[in-house]
């Protein structure tokens, strides 16, 4: 009885109120649960990064305006699209990557008779806005198998949107200005990256495994390689040369 009484007295001295006691119980319980959970689940694989550079070895001429002998004067200037951007992506992806994600929103401008950006990469299910920033009409359309649409003609300040709900490459055109073209690359997984102007790219959070990786540039898959992300994760270097 004396021992029990001393123990209660020690307890009360250590934790002056009842709420402190409850907090301790809760904390302990959570700690135990966490330990049990950690112990029962397998160890999480460490994710890797595929990174490198895409070298555009061939000179790709920007699409010029078609010369028209029927113009009464010099046509207005236009912006030249940046053709240095390649896209690197995994041909096959881990199953978990195919889980549905929240629909996203992206944008492709029409400015100075040019689609900006020239290459747009989006997740499957993304809605892309096509605002017109020129003083003339544009008529965005595509006859690609992945997504066929025709937005009709609309003026400056207006925008129309398209849902890209199937993976693939969609070639975008303007029905009025034949020199306007762009690409929308729709992916069913997140393992893709658009290269920077200097060609560098980086695909993060890739689970360990062996993958086929492709480099796409201006309408074609130009190079395909196989790469292995080790179980311990880390960076894997992979360079491409587009001939």
């Amino acid at each position: 009885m004396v021992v029990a009484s001393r123990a209660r007295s020690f307890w009360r001295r250590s934790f002056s109120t009842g709420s402190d006691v409850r907090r301790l119980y809760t904390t302990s319980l959570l700690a135990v649960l966490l330990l049990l959970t950690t112990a029962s689940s397998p160890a999480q694989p460490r994710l890797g990064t595929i990174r490198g550079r895409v070298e555009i070895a061939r000179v790709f001429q920007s699409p010029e305006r078609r010369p028209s002998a029927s113009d009464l004067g010099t046509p207005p200037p236009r912006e030249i699209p940046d053709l240095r951007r390649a896209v690197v992506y995994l041909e096959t992806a881990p199953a978990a990557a195919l889980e549905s994600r929240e629909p996203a929103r992206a944008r492709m401008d029409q400015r100075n008779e040019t689609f900006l950006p020239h290459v747009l990469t989006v997740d499957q299910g993304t809605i892309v806005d096509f605002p017109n920033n020129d003083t003339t009409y544009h008529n965005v359309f595509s006859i690609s198998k992945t997504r066929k649409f025709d937005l009709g003609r609309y003026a400056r300040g207006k925008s129309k949107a398209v849902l890209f709900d199937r993976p693939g490459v969609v070639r975008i055109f303007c029905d009025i200005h034949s020199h306007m073209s762009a690409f929308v690359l729709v992916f069913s997984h997140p393992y893709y990256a658009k290269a920077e102007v200097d060609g560098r790219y980086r695909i993060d959070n890739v689970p360990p495994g062996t993958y086929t990786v492709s480099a796409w540039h201006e309408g074609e898959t130009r190079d395909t390689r196989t790469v292995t992300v080790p179980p311990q994760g880390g960076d894997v270097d992979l360079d491409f040369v587009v001939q």
Partner: protein
Amino acid sequence: MTSTACRVFRTAVCIAALLIATRAAAQAIPSEPLTFGDGRVVVSGDAAVAFAPKDDGFFNYSSYEQTTLRQVRFGMTAYVRLSDRFSVLGELRSENFEYVTPFALYARIRPLPNRRLDLQVGRIPPTFGSFSRRSYGHDNPLIGSPVAYQYLTSLRPDSVPADLDELVRMRGRGWLSAFSIGDRVGHPGVPLVSAFTWDTGLQLSTGWNMVTAAVGITNGTSSDPRVSDDNAGKQVSLRTTVTPTTGLIVGASIARGEFLDRHIRPLLSNPDAHDFDQRAAELDVEYSRDHWLARAELMRSEWTLPIGTAGAVMPLRSLATTFEGRYTFAPGWYGAARVEHLGFSQITTPTQTTEWEAPVTRTEVGIGYYVQRNLIAKTSLQFNRRDGGRITRSQLLAAQLLYWF
């Protein structure tokens, strides 16, 4: 099967075969213009193959003595930029492998690089009208051309009738016309405005915000463009367009030029008493919105010509009305229609009062399909009616495959 059904079947088979073949080959052909010298030289091309039954009524014959519904046409355009101020443009065209024509060849001078002021010298695009500059296949939603720009009247600059009866006898025979004064050998007459030949001279164009204006001085006339002058007179033409709001373009043109060939005047009793010229005026409207495009054009032309050698002079007028519409009903698919009428002023001969040329009404409806961005398959059905000539009615089913880069 009737002969008409046979023709329709043959045309359909040709279209199907061509579509299959071109679809397979489509991926291998260039889709962008070719550029050289860091963009200083740009070359584009186009090819069009059109099939149709024989046009026995010569409704679609152009000044090249070929029907626009049955031809193989190749074109190549080059743009050479020598400096910010100076460039050269040229275009070669070939029709049915028979002609290689320098359709356009001119220098473009922009004296002030930052100002919209251009001087074009050489074989230049027409200043008059709207269709001549968009007669390229991909700018024309149908296969046929508007009657004002293509249909051949019986008039010729180098051959004039001895009297009004002779003029009336030539009604509906513009594809092969000949009168007794001047050149008596049959040749095609002239349309109101030629879309298939460009004139030679100089052209000054400018623009401010929503207004453009151009003036041209050329050797020929709107109906008879020429490389070398066939008389002492020049044509002066003016064109202006206004774009009050995006999608709406209103244009107007006027032109006046000496029409009669210099070899005719000496045959007249009082050769210097009159100007034998062509005067033309035109108004056009284009409006587009969403998937619609609508165009309308009204054109009036008047030729003042000698009738006989005794000094009689007759103004011969014509009026062309055109309505055209296009609707994109699905991605890559569109439907189009054009309704038009070409009327002529009346003259009184000793035996009758009638139009000096047979009026023509044409309706053409068709659909187009983009096999790919720069490859279009078109088919159209054309109904022609003419109040004169050997054949007064004609229905023509045509198909065209058009490619450009």
